């Protein structure tokens, strides 16, 4: 029997001990002596969140398919255990072997959202190595990070050995082979890192120098040595039929956020919404092969025993083989009594038909994401959705028996006026009126409910809005109150609801998203003062962050509310994400003028992603 890292006494005094014992169905056990490489894959959030993440399952499976590598998992210890580990000097450990982090060659951490940065420091610190990269010892494990936030890793660059830019399926093999060459008694950490920097897609922050202008903008961003590349090219999977997919994902004992089998059908998005970072960094859009997907779906269900399967992509309605795939799933999953959890689909006759087949209409609500209230503003953000399409979709749904509608909006977008946001209330009212108009009184099975919610827009790197000033917290609050009042003025106000998210967390997200290396000491300060689990409202302290920024003389308006010059050097400019800065700048100018850019299938707009030679950029999409 495996010996657990934590004693019974500890496990019985913390919440949900099952988070820390490993041993789940399909988790991989190997003999430590039989492998060359031990990799600890970390998710800087609690187990239930981390176990729901598809990317980790893909990489875990891929690395464990290698005979020379044993990949284990670790998740952020919840504050109750975090405290115990510090008191008793217990190190972070792999769930599989239950051995501490110092037994590992690599500590990989995924960067899914800015609010987990303090948890990254928590995981590094609990591993028993120096938080700052420059202080690490020769034999310390290599800390490598990847994921969407790696597209601006600069705020945390000082804590990281290697940043992986792009999709994990591509260059881990080369990195592991290189490491094996360096392993042994002459192992030198710095020479390994220097060589790793030459692998396409791998960025080693310690090998670059940054100079600043008097106005605090970046003057230069240069490699320290001639053999270190000036730009780092994003790595993408160019042929999904040849890449690995986890047919045997790990099945947690406890209920997690995503408690089902997940089938990724497509990567990338053709839409080009100007606020959306994922839509830019995952370009080009690449569909998976229908026959492969059918096989994966069956294999995953048979290997996990899950009662539910869901589809994953940025915009599932744009998957060209969706009708065929759903027909197959309805038939095959029905036989196996497996529910199909639909992704949010564009509301039209097809999706309404599918939904009525797999869901209980009475219990589900329809979701629209107009993002903006007025057509002018939807053109600014390039959301290719018109008022007519929304109203028609809602009308069809009401006739089909649905009564609940959810609407997602963002406040604080570039060029937004009070007239634009008033339209949020008016659009919600118009949707409710469709119900009364479309469904005769005697056929109404319930009463219409329209729930609109607004979040605070945060400009992100590699989007046309990377130049945009972020709205102030005061302005956001005023706007939210204004919209709330406008809802009260509507005729069907009793059938409408409006809610909005807290703004302080968005503010911090804004600073970290477009931040640079000068933020590092403040992040460390927050961590030292007890800041972890910032993504969890109950643990987030806005004050703690503001004090840390003040202590290190960080002017937050520099990162948030300033409009950037067209030719400013951004901290993330060293990354070549395929999508060019010239294209993004052009899109920024189109946004100002409200000019709509067609989606990738209508017309190629020359964003630059075609250089990867795959996907929608070419006629044979798959």
């Amino acid at each position, binding site marked *: 029997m*495996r010996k657990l890292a934590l004693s019974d006494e500890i496990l019985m005094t913390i919440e949900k001990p099952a988070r820390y014992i*490993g*041993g789940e169905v399909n988790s991989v056990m190997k003999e430590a002596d039989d492998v060359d490489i031990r990799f600890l894959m970390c998710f800087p959030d609690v187990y239930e969140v981390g176990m729901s993440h598809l990317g980790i399952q893909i990489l875990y499976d891929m690395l464990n398919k290698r005979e020379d590598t044993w990949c284990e998992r670790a998740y952020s210890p919840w504050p109750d255990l975090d405290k115990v580990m510090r008191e008793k000097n217990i190190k972070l450990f792999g769930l599989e072997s239950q051995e501490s982090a110092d037994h590992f060659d690599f500590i990989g951490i995924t960067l899914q959202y800015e609010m987990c940065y303090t948890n990254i420091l928590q995981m590094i610190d609990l591993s028993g190595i120096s938080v700052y990269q420059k202080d690490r010892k020769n034999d310390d494990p290599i800390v490598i990070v990847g994921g969407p936030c790696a597209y601006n890793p600069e705020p945390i660059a000082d804590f990281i050995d290697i940043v992986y830019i792009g999709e994990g399926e591509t260059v881990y093999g080369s990195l592991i082979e290189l490491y094996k060459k360096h392993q042994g008694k002459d192992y030198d950490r710095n020479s390994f890192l220097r060589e790793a920097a030459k692998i396409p897609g791998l960025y080693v922050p310690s090998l670059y120098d940054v100079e600043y202008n008097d106005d605090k903008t970046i003057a230069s961003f240069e490699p320290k040595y001639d053999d270190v590349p000036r730009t780092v090219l994003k790595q993408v999977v160019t042929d999904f039929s040849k890449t690995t997919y986890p047919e045997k994902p790990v099945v947690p004992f406890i209920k997690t956020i995503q408690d089902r089998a997940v089938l990724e059908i497509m990567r990338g998005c053709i839409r080009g919404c100007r606020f959306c970072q994922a839509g830019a960094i995952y370009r080009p859009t690449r569909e998976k092969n229908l026959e492969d997907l059918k096989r994966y779906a069956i294999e995953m269900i048979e290997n996990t025993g899950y009662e539910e399967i869901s589809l994953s992509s940025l915009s599932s309605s744009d998957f060209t083989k969706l009708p065929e795939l759903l027909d197959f799933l309805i038939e095959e999953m029905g036989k196996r009594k497996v529910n199909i959890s639909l992704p949010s689909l564009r509301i039209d006759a097809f999706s309404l038909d599918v939904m009525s087949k797999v869901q209980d209409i009475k219990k589900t609500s329809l979701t629209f994401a107009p993002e903006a209230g007025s057509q002018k503003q939807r053109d600014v953000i390039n959301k290719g959705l018109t008022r007519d399409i929304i109203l028609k979709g809602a009308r069809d749904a009401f006739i089909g028996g649905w009564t609940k509608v959810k609407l997602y909006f963002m406040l604080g977008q570039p060029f937004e006026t009070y007239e634009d946001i008033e339209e949020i209330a008016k659009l919600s009212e118009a949707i409710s009126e469709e119900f009364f108009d479309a469904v005769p009184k005697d056929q109404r099975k319930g009463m219409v409910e329209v729930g609109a919610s607004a979040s605070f827009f945060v400009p992100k790197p590699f989007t046309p809005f990377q130049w945009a000033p972020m709205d102030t917290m005061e302005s956001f609050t005023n706007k939210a109150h204004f919209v709330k009042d406008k809802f009260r003025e509507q005729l069907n106000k009793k059938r409408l609801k409006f809610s909005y998210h807290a703004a302080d967390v968005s503010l911090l997200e804004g600073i970290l998203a477009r931040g640079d290396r000068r933020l590092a000491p403040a992040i460390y300060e927050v961590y030292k003062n007890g800041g972890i689990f910032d993504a969890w409202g109950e643990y987030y302290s806005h004050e703690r962050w503001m004090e840390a920024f003040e202590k290190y003389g960080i002017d937050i308006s520099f990162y948030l509310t300033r409009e950037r010059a067209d030719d400013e050097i951004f901290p993330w400019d060293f990354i070549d994400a395929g999508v060019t800065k010239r294209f993004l700048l052009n899109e920024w100018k189109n946004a100002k003028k409200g000019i709509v850019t067609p989606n990738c299938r209508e017309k190629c707009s020359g964003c630059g992603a075609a250089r990867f030679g795959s996907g929608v950029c070419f006629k044979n999409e798959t």
Partner: protein
Amino acid sequence: MKLRIKYAKYGSLKFIGHLDVMRFFQKAIRRAGLDVAYSQGFSPHELITFAAPLGLSVTSEGEYFDGEFNSVTTTKDMVKRLNEQMVEGMEVLDVRLLKKEAKTAMAVVSASDYVVYIKSGYLNDKAELLFNSFDAFMSSDTIEILKKSKKTEKVVDIKPMIIKAAVFPFDGIDGLSKEYLGERDHEKGFFMFLKTGSEENLKPELVMEAYCKFLDIPYEPHAFSVHRLETYMNDGESTVPLYMAGEMISDE
């Protein structure tokens, strides 16, 4: 067809709670390809129900659940197929076919027996006292404990819920499989046969707490491991293990 499935839960799986064990078996049955019956509706679920829930940190070799199946094979085949889907810490021991009119395990549970033992490294100076005074404790006419609920506190006599309890060497306990036990320094423990179920239910931890009070020593909950040996029902005449309600299915 109704089946009654007996299983053991041990090792690190003692930290998996009752609801998660149910979810684990729902998935295991599907992976094993057993022909379980489902409820109707948009979200069909497996028709299985569990017997007496086991507390967190307690191990057991006498756990049960009942399930409705559309078709069955043999006991041997189903035990094998389920065990291919188990993880370390979970083992299927028996599958029995119940009579059509049999009541669910949950409804008929009346008693369980346990062995409580001292964990390795704990209570070194008190072990002898604990082992030697138990008979004296058990010969008390009443064993009163203070039962606290949210609003009320009342004194309850737990003695009538103890069917039998004594210190035994492990080798003298019928049906105990020592491989399921955790680390310990003594090869003996407190055997307890206690009432279990919806009407009367006594946990062995409560007996140990009362015993420590009797000895006037502090009760250290983490010092003891609890292992359930078997779950029983009353078939009208006598108290028998739950599996006795069903028949083994053989090839003939």
